[in-house]
């Protein structure tokens, strides 16, 4: 077991000792702060039509724990789902494959490392939730168990299971990040959506990995008892509502745990182990098809190379080579950047993108603009996240940083290439808005494209990695499809003050651009 402990420790330290993780923690603290909205907020995190909970210890503790469970399960998956890929990229995997460690031992250590990373983040939300109690609640006594118990019973088993899912998707879907995203979102939606219509029964409790049903059931029981009502429709998650309605207050003191619920938590922990065990039976041990295919290519190629290498002794006489002219334009860069974007990832993704693109032509405008456009842009996440990081990933930064005026030529070309893809993908909506003479929407789409591309470039440059942008982009897209105006970067949600909205997006674009150029300027001279 000693070696497993060492792998977990090394993996955990490697993941957490990065700027990206620090920024993730900062975002986590902000998100945890938003779990307990002030009374004047235009959103709710636990929505009960016509009712509102009194901010006592149980309410703040349970709602924070539940929001942490659901939200961290969702985006935490994307945070931890590249542990094996990292070993493939760094070729540490090849060393691992030659050691005595079993597949199960290796995957178990990765799985527990995933869990520890999520647990660390959960620890921060736990502390913030206690702080939020003292900030928002007035007069209620602070009961520590109202915070500890829900985090222990809701969040821990759920995060345990999510950590195992991250392992399974990496084993079965390997490096296909988009496919992993789609599979996970589908599964996530299936779990949450499937429970929504189910009656409160033991089987529903057991199937509820997040424990949402138990919590919402308890709250609705309280409302129905207190007001003799028949409330069933309680939802979790950020729900934005601009229309303030009158509401009644509910005093709720927490969940009465049942044996079935406690059993269900153990079942999900057991299932987490089972998923890892099953994955270990199919684990490629770094000898997957892709590598085999590449090796085949190399082998064929090696023979060819041997044939030509020593055939004749060619020489290079610099004075006899054709003279070149100075050419400081950025068109060749844009061409290469577009080539790299297009050749990135598999062809099947282009079919999905084509389908969504055609869908944007025919779908009702609110769906096309509010859902399909954010989704089709999100499908570029792995392409855009590489815009400003691929030189470092491919160790080409020595060339780019020592080139002639890299900041004035290279970085703008990367931004423009990203922008061109964003605009081409948004063309159906742009044309439809233009035909409808909706210049405001057209402008917003353009500035939104600039924003999302600049965000990729800026976060890539600052964090030296792709993960932060990928997680943030996922969260933005998710919240945007829920009509969250706070993340509306492309004008898909109505805003009261158009001028202010435009100014904010333009200001953010300017900030991102200035930060990107400043930091890259520093990096280019400080290798």
């Amino acid at each position: 077991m000693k070696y497993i402990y060492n792998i977990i420790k090394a993996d955990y330290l490697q993941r957490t000792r990065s700027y990206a993780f620090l920024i993730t923690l900062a975002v986590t603290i902000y998100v945890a702060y938003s779990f307990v909205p002030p009374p004047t907020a235009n959103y709710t995190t636990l929505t009960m039509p016509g009712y509102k909970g009194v901010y006592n210890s149980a309410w703040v503790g349970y709602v924070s724990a539940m929001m942490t469970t659901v939200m961290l399960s969702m985006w935490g998956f994307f945070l931890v789902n590249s542990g094996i890929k990292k070993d493939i990229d760094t070729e540490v995997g090849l060393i691992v494959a030659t050691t005595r460690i079993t597949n199960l031992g290796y995957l178990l250590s990765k799985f527990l490392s995933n869990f520890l990373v999520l647990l660390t983040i959960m620890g921060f939300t736990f502390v913030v939730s206690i702080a939020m109690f003292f900030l928002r609640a007035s007069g209620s006594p602070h009961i520590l168990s109202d915070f500890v118990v829900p985090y222990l019973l809701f969040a821990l088993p759920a995060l345990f299971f999510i950590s195992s899912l991250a392992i399974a998707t990496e084993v079965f879907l390997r490096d296909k990040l988009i496919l992993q995203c789609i599979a996970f979102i589908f599964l996530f939606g299936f779990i949450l959506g499937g429970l929504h219509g189910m009656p409160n029964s033991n089987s529903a409790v057991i199937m509820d990995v997040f424990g949402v049903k138990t919590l919402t059931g308890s709250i609705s029981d309280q409302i129905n008892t207190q007001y003799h009502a028949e409330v069933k429709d309680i939802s979790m998650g950020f729900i934005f509502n601009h229309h303030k309605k009158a509401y009644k207050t509910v005093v709720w003191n927490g969940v009465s745990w049942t044996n079935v619920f406690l059993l269900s938590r153990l079942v999900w922990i057991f299932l987490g182990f089972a998923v890892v065990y099953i994955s270990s039976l199919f684990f490629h041990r770094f000898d997957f098809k892709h590598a085999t295919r590449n090796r085949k290519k190399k082998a064929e190629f090696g023979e060819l190379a041997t044939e030509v290498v020593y055939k004749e002794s060619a020489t290079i006489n610099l004075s006899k080579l054709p003279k070149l002219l100075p050419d400081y334009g950025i068109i060749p860069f844009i061409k290469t950047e577009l080539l790299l974007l297009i050749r990135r990832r598999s062809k099947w993704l282009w079919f999905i993108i084509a389908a969504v693109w055609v869908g944007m032509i025919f779908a009702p405008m609110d769906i096309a603009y509010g859902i399909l456009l954010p989704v089709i842009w999100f499908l570029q996440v792995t392409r855009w996240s590489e815009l400003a990081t691929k030189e470092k990933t491919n160790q080409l930064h020595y060339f780019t940083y020592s080139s002639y005026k890299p900041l004035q030529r290279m970085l703008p070309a990367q931004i423009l290439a990203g922008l061109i893809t964003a605009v081409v993908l948004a063309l159906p909506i742009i044309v439809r808005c233009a035909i409808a003479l909706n210049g405001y929407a057209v402008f917003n789409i353009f500035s939104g494209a600039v924003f999302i591309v600049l965000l990729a470039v800026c976060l890539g440059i600052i964090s030296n990695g792709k993960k932060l942008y990928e997680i943030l982009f996922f969260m933005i897209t998710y919240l945007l499809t829920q009509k969250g105006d706070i993340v509306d970067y492309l004008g898909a949600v109505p805003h009261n003050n158009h001028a202010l909205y435009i100014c904010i997006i333009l200001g953010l674009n300017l900030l991102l651009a200035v930060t990107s150029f400043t930091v890259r300027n520093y990096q280019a001279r400080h290798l």
Partner: protein
Amino acid sequence: MSLVIKNLTKQYDKQKTGLSDYSVTIEKGILGLLGPNGAGKSTLMKIIATISKPTQGTVFLDGEDIVNNPDYIRRILGYLPQDFGVYPNLNAYEFLEYIAALKGVGGAGLRQRIEMLLEGVNLTADAKRPIGTYSGGMKQRIGIAQALLNDPKILIFDEPTVGLDPEERVRFRQLISDLADDCIIILSSHIVSDIETIADEVAIMKNGRLLDKAIQPEIISHADGKVFETLIDSGDLNVIKAKHLIINTTRQKDKTKVRYIIKNQEPEPSSIPATATLEDAYLFLTQNA
């Protein structure tokens, strides 16, 4: 053309010093950098290649300060880093076109120049394959081609022969020698024989400091009269190790032939003096520094 480096210091943090008060003048020809790991060779090269700023000191190319005006050297710079990479999805033509754009060169002759360079590094037959499928040696050769793309006057090669097979190494040495008439070439290598064969001058470094820089005979003269060879019983090796600096050992059945440098003691009985080489001088200087 001359590159004047004055009092260069690179301090990464309180503990780690890359270069320490390093001064050297480099003229046309080949300068070979020798030094153990952490000697500061790559740091020096990065600073000249303008991708790292010194903490103190200046670098002048023909009187122009390239620390403050990096674009002055970038136009005529060819740089082959130690751990460079490629975009695996591009083929050799696309990659070199991209590098040409980085270097700010183009025009009608670009395609032909790329073809001639690829021919020169024996990659023509494979030029349309994605570079991701290349072997290590082939990638190294594409790296050499990119360094020569812009008609460079300053060439910096950091461990250029890594990954090349023996014949390719010979070809590379020949190529470097041919280029040396018009350019300043700075070359680092752990393989002393590479430097010995082609470098006009050698700079020996350790712990970020310059131990010596001179033409090869002068460097070698440091070890003159100090190198000996002897045949001993294998069991006696540790006795010699304790007294002298071992250069190499060769097993010959139950005996071992030892080549060593004397420190402050007399040579072993029955030893015969040997002609000093660059490797002997390098080890002598770095061990005694």
